[in-house]
């Protein structure tokens, strides 16, 4: 095992686009880092900012929310709400002192496995550079 820090990244992927894109990346044998742990949601509009905080609390070093490009949303406007809501979540976390690269958002459609590979590699690289997340993780509380 390489002694480099292997970050732990939780990704909320929208079922119709990004999850399909990631799946296509898999079926077309595109190699991308394994640090990413995918949670399938029906739409990025469904992702509650509490999930992001909870993921970081339980050991994630980075969180990604990826969904359909504007206009492609299966539910018409789910990604639009997500864009507005999670954009402000990023500002709030930055205001409190959490590095903005810890939580990223991306548009990856079902036919963009390469973009998915780039996004994941960029994310893993940045999180590896940031090191483990040690600001409000549960396992740092001494019981």
């Amino acid at each position, binding site marked *: 095992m390489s002694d480099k820090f292997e970050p732990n990244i939780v990704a909320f992927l929208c079922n119709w686009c990004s999850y399909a894109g990631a799946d296509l990346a898999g079926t077309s044998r595109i190699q991308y880092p394994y640090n990413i742990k995918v949670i399938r949601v029906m739409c990025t509009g469904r992702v509650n900012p509490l999930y992001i905080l909870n993921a970081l609390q339980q050991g994630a070093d980075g969180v990604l929310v990826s969904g359909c490009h504007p206009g492609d949303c299966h539910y018409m406007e789910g990604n*639009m709400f997500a864009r507005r809501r999670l*954009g402000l979540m990023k500002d709030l976390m930055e205001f*409190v*002192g959490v590095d*903005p690269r810890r939580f*990223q958002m*991306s548009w990856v459609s079902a036919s963009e496995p390469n973009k998915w590979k780039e996004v994941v590699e960029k994310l893993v690289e940045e999180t590896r550079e940031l090191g483990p997340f040690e600001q*409000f993780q549960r396992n740092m509380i001494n019981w």
Partner: protein
Amino acid sequence: MIDLDKLRNTAAETVSRDDVKHLVGWKKGTFGYRVAPCVIENAEEAESLVFSPLCAANLATYITLPEKLPVPKGEQPDDRKTALMVKGCDSRAVVQMLVEQGIDRDQVVIIGCSCQGVVDLQKVEEKFPEPLDTVEAEWKEDKIVFKLPDGEEEVARDEVLADNCLICRYPNPVIADVSLGSEVEPAKDGEDSSVKEIEDLSLDDRWEFWEKEFSNCIRCYSCRNVCPMCYCDDCVMDRLNPAWIYRSVNYSENTVFNLSRAFHLVGRCVDCGECERVCPMGLPLGKLNRKLAREVREKYEYEPGLDPEEKPFQASYRPDDQEDFIL
């Protein structure tokens, strides 16, 4: 300035209407600078109502606070209206509740009082230690007069006003069935400089500042229970199955509680300053809300609680919303 008799008569008339159940107003507290929210049911009790720079409580929370008990069989639910007195920021809270259909318009009778800013008790206590007997206070142009036991004291408004009142943009009620008091012009500079100070800190210094504050939090939930915008029946923070946050009190759970609560107020908080006033541990919660409110104002040109027909902020979007952070 609002003269008290006009206020009391309006209140007495409103509460004696047969379609009004009770009226929520402010009355003299039991000691020192305190003013307590009170619920009056008949005209005589209206005599005890006051309106002064000490009336900091946002009474909009009392529309949704009373628990709705199951109606015994055969009885009709009492759906008479709730009348309440609102300052500028309180009225915006009522409007925001209407925007979100948390309440409906014919459920409330609103008496608007234009407000020249309420005082921050800590700032006042530094100047004049709180006496035991109740103190009356009044606005006088740009000064506030305190009738202390050993004589009257005048002090400049800006020295004792609460932080959010110093930058108040809407001192006059935006919605009211009856409005009292003359027009008050809003503060010149509507931005909170302390938010800027925190933003200029480095990332680690910011976290160090907030970690210390969040570690002080004892999770008594005063901020949530006082907030007019927090009117959910069962709050996600109290859930056990799944327990999004645990009940144990440490800086990890406190951080997620305070961040989530701040986030639940994005595009909803009317900056009435109550959460900061009631926190027994003195957490600067208003800074979180004002930072987000400024982002919403600048990036999305949206201000909550101004027009009841407006769509809620988090339930609407614009095609050209900002998306530079998206890969």
